[in-house]
């Protein structure tokens, strides 16, 4: 033992001497290397303690998350999901009282509806034979299926309410005035499509409620002036139940399998696609027109030249 201890004490001692001594030095060396490795690993692990300094973190998040104004601005501006925000806003605009948060909540509900809607699509066939059964299946067999359907339904109703309140707020604050005239018009179109999204979804369970609501709704299309078979001047222009605007909506002269398929495609693909485009324009214009309109300082009638 004593010899071995002495042997290990000598630097560069390995390679020489007999086999027994060589093995001992080898073990000694391995232990020493192991210790050095452990030390290195520990010191490296120490560096991983601050996750924000890791290579991986820095590759994902390009900005430091400290409380400097520069980092705060960059964390918004360089983030793909947040970059529609400016880096700074009117200090009073974050108060609930001015915007009521209704535009943002509407958009959030649109996302919730897209998410729950995609999940619902996995369990639904838009055919007369399957549609109603799929809803029963969804309600009774699919895990959380009932919750999923309820969230989609109530989220849609809530979205109609928040759209109306958003519009009401924008009107009361005069936010449609110059330079935001066009964006108001885009907003009106988005509101129309919100109602149409909700309405096209109504038929999909293929139950009495949806069937008769859509029957009543599309029967009105019969009365379209010029383009409907029962509308003013429609018959005179050669409109029949088989070529008028109602036929185009339903893909037939009655609410049947074609109508179900059309409602499904409008609801799940066509209208969400159109809405996404208008939403992009709507948000883009909010920024380009100078952000949200207020709360702005009040202007007196005497201060406006054109009113004198």
């Amino acid at each position, binding site marked *: 033992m004593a010899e071995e201890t002495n042997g290990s004490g000598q630097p560069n001692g390995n390679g020489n001497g007999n086999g027994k001594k060589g093995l001992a030095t080898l073990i000694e060396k391995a232990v020493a290397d192991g210790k050095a490795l452990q030390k290195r690993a520990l010191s490296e692990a120490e560096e991983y303690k601050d996750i924000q300094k890791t290579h991986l973190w820095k590759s994902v998040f390009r900005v430091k998350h400290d409380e400097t104004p520069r980092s*705060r*601005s960059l964390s918004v501006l360089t983030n793909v999901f947040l970059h529609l925000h400016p880096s700074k806003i009117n200090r009073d605009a974050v108060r609930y009282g001015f915007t009521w948060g209704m535009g*943002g909540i509407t958009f959030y509900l649109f996302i919730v509806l897209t998410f729950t809607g995609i999940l619902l699509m996995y369990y639904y066939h838009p055919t007369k034979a399957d549609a109603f059964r799929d809803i029963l299946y969804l309600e009774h067999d699919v895990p959380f299926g009932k919750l999923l359907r309820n969230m989609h339904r109530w989220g849609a109703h*809530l979205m109609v309410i928040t759209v109306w309140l958003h519009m009401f707020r924008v009107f009361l604050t005069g936010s449609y*005035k110059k330079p935001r005239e066009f964006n108001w018009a885009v907003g009106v179109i988005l509101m129309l499509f919100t109602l149409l999204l909700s309405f096209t979804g109504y038929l999909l369970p293929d139950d009495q409620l949806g*069937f008769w609501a859509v029957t009543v709704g599309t029967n009105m299309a019969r009365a379209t002036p010029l383009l409907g078979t029962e509308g003013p001047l429609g018959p005179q222009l050669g409109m029949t139940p088989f070529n008028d605007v109602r036929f185009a909506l339903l893909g037939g002269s009655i609410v049947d399998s074609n109508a179900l398929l059309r409602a499904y495609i409008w609801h799940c693909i066509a209208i969400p696609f159109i809405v996404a485009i208008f939403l992009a324009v709507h948000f883009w214009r909010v920024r380009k027109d100078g952000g949200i309109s207020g709360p702005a300082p009040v*202007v007196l009638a005497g201060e406006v030249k054109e009113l004198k």
Partner: protein
Amino acid sequence: MDWGQLWRITSTPDNVPIVALLFLIPFYTWYGLRQAFANDKLIEELEKNPEMTKTHHRKTLPWKPGWAQEVHVWPFLLRVEFLAAIIVTVILMVWSITLNAPLEEPSNPTLTMNPSKAPWYFLGLQEMLVYFDPWMAGVVLPSLIIVGMMAIPYFDTNPLGNGYYTYKQRKFAILTFCFGFLVLWISMIVIGTFIRGPGWVWFWPGQTWDHNIVVYQPNKDLPDFFGITNAWGKAVIGLAFLGGFGAVTGGAIHKWIMSDDFSKKVYQKMSLLQYATLQFFLITMMLLPVKMILRLTLNFKYILVTPWLNL
């Protein structure tokens, strides 16, 4: 008083949003107008006191010298948005856990639902079907509502009230919009939901729905009041009435605008096209309440009767 009937209507799952609307709309109307009146008070003070205009920050919100005009979006806005998302999610979850989406029997074209109601947000349009033919209530008026709303910024020439709540500086705009939105649109939805029963018959809240009710309503058209049977005569008197209605309503609106010095100045800024558009949409809008009243009191059906269309 049939409380059971009232409860059945109120607790129908698809009617819950309207019950919510009954609270939300009055609340937000009050919430917005409260800020409008606060701003109006400030505007009055500033107008009285020109010295104050030079130093005042011109908002009713708190302000101290040295406070930054702007704040960072992160964290001051994003945390509010995040909180809103959480609250909405919680509300939606609780709502979805406690209340099931309606599912009736499988669709059956041979079995008509009575009453057969549209989704609640379209009940205003369905209620309009009582007062107008489908081409008008279902197609023309909805299109005009959409186009008219889109046109608002293009004929509102009042430069004041841009970006803050005010009533005093935008009386005409606020009153006409609230009339259209609150009085016509929302109240028509409420009528369609709570008042209309089987056969689309008027049942007061708490009145029992009678599914066998038959209402004898001998409707009268305008020419019938004068005993006119000739097709040409009907068309002439109908057009004359519509023309007269337009002239009287337009005149009244014009007089209202002119009665106020400020609206008069705003009016003078308008081009002919802007003013004609404004008048067209307002007169068309007023056609609805007029026909509602005539219908509900006199069983009045059509003003204009022609072989092709009735109005």
